């Protein structure tokens, strides 16, 4: 599998996915 960080768009999408994961985690675990 290609590393998403090899491309700009892969990096941006990774960042957006991480944002969603952290928001859900924060709301679920820390709220």
């Amino acid at each position, binding site marked *: 599998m290609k*590393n998403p960080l*090899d491309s700009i768009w892969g990096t941006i999408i990774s960042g957006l996915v991480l944002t969603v994961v952290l*928001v859900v985690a924060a*709301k679920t675990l820390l709220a």
Partner: protein
Amino acid sequence: MEYVPALARWLHFLAGIMWVGLLYYFNFVQIPALKAAGADGTAAGITRHIAPRALLYFRWSAVVTWLAGAALLGGQFVSAFTLSKGYAGIGIGAWLGTIMLFNVWVIIWPNQQKILGLKPATDEEKNAARRTALLTSRANMALSIPMLFFMAGGLTHRAAFGL
């Protein structure tokens, strides 16, 4: 002493814009430009004159951003970093920024020193350093997206997401 957090916030924003701005410059402009410049033999101008200056401001603006952020948190520093109730949003942002600062000084800068010839390295070590520096820079770019989401949230995010 209300001047301290106000000035810390201002400095945090100024230095943070420089840090993340240079991070985006590296990823959106310099890395693709070096690839093109390598093809026509003009990369030396970038690696000799531009990259060292950009890296100087990059790594030191990262330090100033973090210190100003810590000063801005003040007595809430521990609450933020322990993700205490009511501090989850800024705490996650602070952790992401701290990881990014670590990446700059512990991974990106030592590898860039090898790439730019500021530290002795074989061609094989330079190639490995290029790959490590690229992936870490990209990781920081990815981390900057949730970092800014959580840091710049404030009241709008509290209303929309409860964070």
